């Protein structure tokens, strides 16, 4: 796989890449797994919205309200199209991946699970796909089981098949680990879950921004993701759910827009997706989210994946040259554009701080995956992550920077 677009031309779409850090070093942004940078198309879509069309939606008949409503619903179509949902109605706008998971836990979960029921997660999960189930388990007395990672940092299919014998109600798993970069075999995981009578929730926070994800091909029941990690704005995310499931779920938050009729002591909920969008939604953010989905679709998710694979493969090669480094995760073919590593005797904060002095933004910490770090036997790692705008030259700068860290602390 090689890059099919011109990275340098594409970089011109991202104004922040001209940013100077500290003493006039150029920004090298290797932290897209935490949040992605935004192309002008996304920033300007929101800008335009506020300067031209801003109004509250769904209930106004004046020109601005009609425009805003149309833009908000068009965004739903753009996002639905990216993941190939059968209908835009299957896309619910939330704040982020985290809220999407909580929505499923609070509604589908509380309605469909009871004492002793089993939920299968994996050891690789982000806190956002652990804590909501821990809270629900505490409330309903559920049993949580965890698919381990194999010695080569893959989803342990054998262990999973065994856990399915427990007849779980739900399998909730990440499609790409934000630490290891591991890409899990989502289609197989889902089809096995369905055979065992379980529903599935894909944490697509890292997969939707970086890979082609087709909910119909995957036969996904729920898929959750965040706009901010896929070139879109903060403050908005999505929950995809199969229409039948969404229709059967009770509402989550109560309030304006999620109702059909209200009396003082009772209400009738609105239809899906509005049933789950209480109150004034993130309207401008939806417009930005739609623009981001379209931007990615114009590049093509295969091309996105290929480019990142290129960069990641090169980064792994170069990192592994460095004495005293350990990179966690599988080999490049099963891995997205993430490289988390530790270095003998060096604290991730110090590495990140010295790199920042070189203009290089990487993340240090447990990346909201403490249990996975426990599995890896470390408290924290330094993580470099890659997106469509990153180049091999930036990887070279990273490697140089790491040598500088060694020098300073040597």
């Amino acid at each position, binding site marked *: 796989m090689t890059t099919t677009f011109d990275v340098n031309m594409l970089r011109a779409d991202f104004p922040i890449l001209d940013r100077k850090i500290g003493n006039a070093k150029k920004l090298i942004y290797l932290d897209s797994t935490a949040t992605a940078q935004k192309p002008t198309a996304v920033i300007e879509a929101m800008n335009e919205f506020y300067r031209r069309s801003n109004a509250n939606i769904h*209930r106004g008949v004046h020109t601005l309200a*009609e425009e805003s*409503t*149309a833009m908000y619903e068009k965004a739903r179509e753009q996002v639905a199209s990216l993941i190939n949902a059968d209908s835009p109605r299957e896309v619910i706008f939330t704040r982020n991946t985290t809220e999407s998971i909580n929505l499923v836990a609070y509604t589908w979960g509380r309605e469909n699970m009871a004492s002793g029921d089993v939920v299968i997660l994996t050891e690789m999960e982000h806190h956002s796909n652990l804590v909501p189930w821990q809270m629900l388990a505490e409330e309903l007395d559920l049993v949580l089981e965890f698919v381990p990672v194999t010695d080569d940092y893959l989803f342990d299919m054998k262990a999973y098949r065994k856990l399915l014998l427990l007849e779980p109600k739900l399998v909730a798993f990440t499609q790409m680990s934000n630490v290891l970069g591991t890409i899990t075999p989502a289609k197989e995981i889902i089809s096995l879950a369905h055979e065992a009578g379980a529903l599935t929730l894909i944490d697509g926070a890292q997969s939707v921004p970086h890979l082609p994800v087709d909910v119909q091909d995957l036969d996904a029941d729920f898929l959750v993701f965040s706009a901010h990690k896929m070139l879109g704005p903060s403050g908005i995310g999505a929950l995809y759910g199969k229409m039948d499931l969404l229709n059967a779920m009770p509402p989550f938050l109560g309030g304006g827009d999620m109702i059909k009729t209200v009396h003082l002591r009772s209400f009738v909920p609105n*239809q899906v997706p509005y049933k789950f969008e209480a109150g004034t939604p993130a309207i401008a953010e939806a417009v930005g989210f739609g623009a981001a989905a379209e931007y990615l679709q114009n590049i093509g998710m295969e091309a996105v994946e290929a480019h990142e694979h290129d960069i990641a493969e090169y980064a792994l090669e170069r990192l592994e040259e460095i004495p005293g480094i350990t990179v966690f995760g599988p080999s490049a073919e099963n891995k997205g554009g993430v490289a988390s590593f530790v270095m003998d005797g060096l604290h991730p904060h110090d590495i990140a701080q010295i790199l920042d002095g070189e203009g290089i933004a990487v993340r240090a910490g447990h990346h909201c995956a403490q249990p996975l770090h426990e599995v890896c036997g470390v408290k924290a790692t330094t993580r470099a992550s890659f997106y469509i705008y990153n180049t091999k030259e930036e990887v070279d700068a990273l490697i140089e920077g790491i040598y500088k860290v060694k020098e300073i602390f040597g």
Partner: protein
Amino acid sequence: MDDLYRQLIIERYKTPHYRGHLDPHDIFFEDDNPVCGDHIEVTVRTNDEDIVTEAAFDGHGCSISQAAADLLIEYIHGKKLDEVKALTKDDVVDLLGIDLGPVRLKCALLSLKVLKAGAYGLGVDEVSDELVE
């Protein structure tokens, strides 16, 4: 705007041709627009060949919803039930002859939604905007 309130709509709103309630009837359905509380009911009589012989609407609402209902009821007279089931949003928009944004479109389509729900024999809980897309 002048388009939107073209003469036909104001006229049909002020003096509808098909306002009423048929009793007996073969089809009855009613629903609300949650945005404004507008209400439409339709009653339809069909013959042995499932052809609409008579139809009427009742309810209250804005000029768009009431005029659309009146024009729609007029339009289905003499149509087969299968043709009624196949009606779409575009048919109503053509009848009204004006462009509408997504919010006003809901007003315009309320009568079609009610009519199709009745034609399909749906339950109250089964009505969705998908009927009129």
